[in-house]
């Protein structure tokens, strides 16, 4: 199998000065490209034995007592570019609490911690590439970029596909959030359609009456194709 090269025009560039931290953290030289090798086309495999019972339930997985906030299910599928489901994919998430505060020693935002909310979860996709989490909707929070910049509500996602070359970290946003269009991090993505694909719609079909709302978030990783014609020697 051969990994499909990334279409970089749908990905944010390294240097995006509206997001100030990129200015000193972006390579100035062009990336060196080449055909994918075994190093990129293989990757770690994670089994269900690493998962704890409540690893995908962020409402309960910190202390066992329920967290405060808007109860939501986040669900979706992990697919490749050929719309094939990726089963066995490790999906890891982390997020702020309902007030926009992270449980991280470096976060000193004045909104309080929730004693019953840790803010991270993980799961492994099923045969059809599906996954789900139960969590509280994270709050927006301010960050020192522009004079008055606020991150929209978001959940960070980390994905392992079948190979290390598919490795991806991104963020899920919520339908209708007016902060999305104003966010310098969102706007590092040059293509509006690519931004729209990171916005999860409200999904009433998966909401549980008198319990929780639901949002759907599908993720697409790089595809791989069968190696059919590959007769050229390296370097030609």
């Amino acid at each position, binding site marked *: 199998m051969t990994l499909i090269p990334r279409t970089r025009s749908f990905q944010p*560039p390294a240097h995006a000065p509206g997001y100030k931290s990129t200015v000193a953290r972006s390579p100035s030289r062009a990336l060196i490209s080449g055909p994918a090798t075994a190093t990129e086309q293989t990757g770690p495999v994670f089994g269900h034995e690493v998962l704890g019972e409540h690893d995908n339930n962020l409402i309960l997985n910190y202390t066992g007592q329920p967290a405060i906030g808007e109860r939501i299910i986040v669900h979706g599928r992990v697919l490749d570019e050929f719309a094939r489901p990726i089963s066995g994919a490790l999906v890891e998430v982390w997020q702020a609490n309902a007030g926009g505060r992270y*449980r991280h020693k470096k976060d000193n935002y004045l909104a309080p911690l929730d004693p019953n909310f840790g803010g991270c979860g993980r799961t492994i996709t099923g045969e059809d590439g599906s996954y789900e989490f139960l969590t509280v909707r994270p709050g927006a929070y301010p960050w020192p970029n522009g004079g008055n910049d606020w991150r929209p509500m978001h959940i960070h996602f980390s994905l392992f596909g079948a190979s290390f070359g598919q490795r991806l970290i991104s963020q899920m946003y919520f339908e209708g959030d007016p902060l999305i269009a104003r966010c310098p991090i969102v706007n590092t993505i040059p293509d509006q359609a690519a931004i729209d694909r990171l916005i999860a719609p409200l999904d009433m079909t998966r909401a549980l009456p008198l319990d929780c709302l639901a949002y759907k978030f599908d993720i697409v990783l790089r595809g791989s194709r069968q190696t059919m014609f590959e007769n050229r020697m390296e370097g030609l």
Partner: protein
Amino acid sequence: MVQKLETLIESASQTAGPYVHIGLMPTYAGNAGYYDEEIGTTPFLDESKAKGEIVEIVGSVFDGTGWAMRDALIESWQCDAGGVFPGDKGADPAFTGHCRFAADAESGEFTLRTVKPGSYKGRGGVESAPHISLWVVARGINIGLNTRIYFEDEDNANDPLLNRIEQRPRVNTLIAKKTGDGKYRFDIRLQGEGETVFLDI
């Protein structure tokens, strides 16, 4: 109108942000015990049984001002000492090949303790020089940066990836320097003088 291509497009990347460690390295973020088992804390399942030479690679990730970053998270992936990737037939059962690590908050230095990888034959039967793949994410990095560690005490002359780099002095940015028995130094410079080669593979 031409025929329609029925393909999807890879989801756009976003920065891992300043709090990436709470999700991927809870102990490092000050949340020890969050998970019964954290992923990737070591590439060994059983270090005492792993085949090959155990090496320690120390380094820092420097930004464009020369500051050693304290908030980057790095993952490594590599084959075992015999050149076989974990999960493939014949791979060393004591070795997972995958590790997550981050810089120390005080020193700004990371340490990767692993086995020195073997080499494997790739496209056209060409043998690659031993290397470890790295993926670097952090606040200010919009899409994970891929690079590789090679070793100065190996024969790197015929490596197909290294030979794609036109400006030969830049090859040195991918080569770990030996500092002692089984010890190497590998610094990553995101930008400016001595900028590390990053890959789009």
